[in-house]
């Protein structure tokens, strides 16, 4: 009994420490965004600002077209998320419910593409995009990302947990595959689909390298690119303004995460486990 309690306390303490490691940098960033330059420089390790000021945010609004940048980022993230969900759902459905003897080999090939690093695909993609005349266009950022193996992998795991007999019952009613997908598979796997969508959204939101290659004019920038604009070439930066920019970049996905966290955690906890 007693050792049990001590063990539980130890586990909780460990979890608490780990959570602190995750949360503290975020909290520090948010609070620092309300500090003045002097405040940051004199007391770098202090969590709370001496005085809450909004000047940093005002500076950002003055220096970059902030509204447009947010819209750009949202537009790209939503496009990527939407298309990726459609392609992933269709592919995962085929891999799980329209099996033939090539399914596993094909799936394996798809999964292999997850291990191709960005640095390999970057240049061919860049050439393609430029030949299509999509350089410095939002579509140029979104286009190469409309389909990838990660989503297929995650959704396939979840679709596999759906009892085959549900699909068979629908097939006996001569239900077309698209109807089975939309009326049965997606509603049953709804939490997983939403969570996968959030992951796509956040990944696209945070992306830096590829948009940096494609986008040139400030009016087309996404949030991570705009944040970079406040850091000098030699790494010098107005830390307070950078922190404000980071907070702004963080805010929208954070709110989304808080709303859907139940689904996100669920989808990772159950991937690989049937049923």
């Amino acid at each position: 009994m007693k050792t049990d309690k001590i063990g539980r306390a130890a586990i909780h303490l460990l979890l608490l420490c780990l959570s602190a490691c995750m949360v503290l940098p975020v909290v520090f960033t948010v609070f620092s965004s309300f500090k003045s330059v002097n405040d940051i420089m004199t007391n770098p390790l202090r969590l709370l600002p001496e005085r809450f000021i909004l000047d940093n945010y005002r500076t950002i609004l003055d220096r970059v077209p902030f509204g447009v940048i947010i819209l750009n980022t949202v537009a790209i993230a939503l496009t990527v998320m939407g298309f990726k969900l459609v392609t992933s759902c269709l592919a995962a459905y085929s891999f799980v419910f329209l099996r033939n003897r090539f399914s596993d080999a094909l799936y394996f090939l798809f999964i292999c593409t997850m291990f191709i690093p960005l640095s390999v695909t970057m240049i061919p993609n860049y050439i393609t995009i430029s030949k299509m005349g999509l350089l410095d266009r939002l579509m140029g950022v979104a286009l190469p990302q409309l389909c990838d193996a990660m989503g297929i992998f995650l959704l396939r795991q979840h679709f596999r947990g759906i009892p085959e007999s549900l699909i068979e019952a629908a097939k006996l009613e001569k239900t077309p595959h698209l109807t089975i997908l939309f009326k049965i598979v997606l509603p049953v796997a709804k939490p997983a689909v939403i969570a996968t969508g959030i992951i796509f959204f956040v990944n696209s939101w945070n992306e830096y390298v590829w948009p940096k290659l494609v986008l040139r004019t400030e009016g087309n920038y996404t949030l991570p690119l705009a944040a970079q604009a406040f850091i000098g070439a030699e790494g010098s930066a107005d830390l307070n303004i950078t922190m404000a920019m980071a907070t702004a970049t963080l805010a929208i996905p954070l709110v989304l995460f808080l709303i859907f966290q139940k689904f996100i955690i669920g989808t990772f906890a159950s991937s690989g486990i049937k049923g």
Partner: protein
Amino acid sequence: MNDIRLEHITKKYGGNEVVSDLTLPIRPGERMILLGPSGCGKSTTLRMISGLTEITSGDLYMGGVRMNDVGCGDRNVAMVFQNYALFPHMTVYQNIAFGLRTLKLPKAEVKKRVLAMIETLELSGLEKRLPRELSGGQRQRVALARAAIKNAPYFLLDEPLSNLDVQLRAHARKELVRIHELNRSTFLYVTHDQIEAMTIGQRVAILNKGKLQMVDTPHNIYYRPANVFCARFIGTPPMNVFPAELEESALVVAGHRIRLSPAWGRRLASSLKGPRVTAGIRPEEIILRPSERENTVPATVKYVENYGNSLGVYFELGGLEMVATVGQNRPLSQGDALFAEFPDAGLSFFDPETEKNVGYPEEYGGENKPLHLAK
């Protein structure tokens, strides 16, 4: 006509033959049961008829049309799955209406039929519930309703009662028969439970290891088993099957002589090659007497099982163990010495090589045991 004809149907998974050379005609509108131990290929057979599993070789005819290459949606079958396969995100109403909605029937018509079905299966008041909010028996009825509402000419059921408790099963069996009598579709029911097979079936097909053992009425399945497997598979406790030898119209069982009637003597003489034979008798046909009589053999009680309405008496007869069922009014205990009588009308004989039934004399009804002789 909604008959189903399986002709030399075989199903292989890789090199593994799950169903081999199955030929089985199913009459229009009858209740046919596919019965067998787990892994005998009965569910695979059902799935081949539904179209959910491909047929490796052989021909499947439904209503006279070859169906091998027809998709499952076009075979016009209704099916109840073992796990019910209810759509978890749909209410009872939506589940039952699913098939009709896919057919794009007018809304009013769908509503009328669904409500009638809900009424028939006593599901009123549960229309808006989700499957997870229902009890096992209610789920089973929803699954039944979803299949029955199609009014399909073929009704396939894959162990639909195996997840219910005993009381619910008895009720559900009656319900199934009632539903069948409403629309008289050709009813094919897979089970490993012989009580279900006997109570629901008009005819029963027994399968073992992918091979058809016999097809007959429940009455004949019980009293005229086609071979040793059927004899042992049906009945609780099962039929006593034991080796014996024929000696001038008497049966020698473990050193004891049991005189046979002349009818059996003639019958066995004409169908057996040597003196060896495999004999069988149902536990309730054996008569256990407290004192020796003509044509009885001594037996020692080894173990008594109480079935509530009767006792199962396991006794030893010259090294063989047999079981007899007797009424509750007999105070029997281990070690009691008794005398067993084997009435001629209750005996069955099987060929010791092929294990096939050698047949019955006309005096005992031939291939159909007359009702007055059945216990």
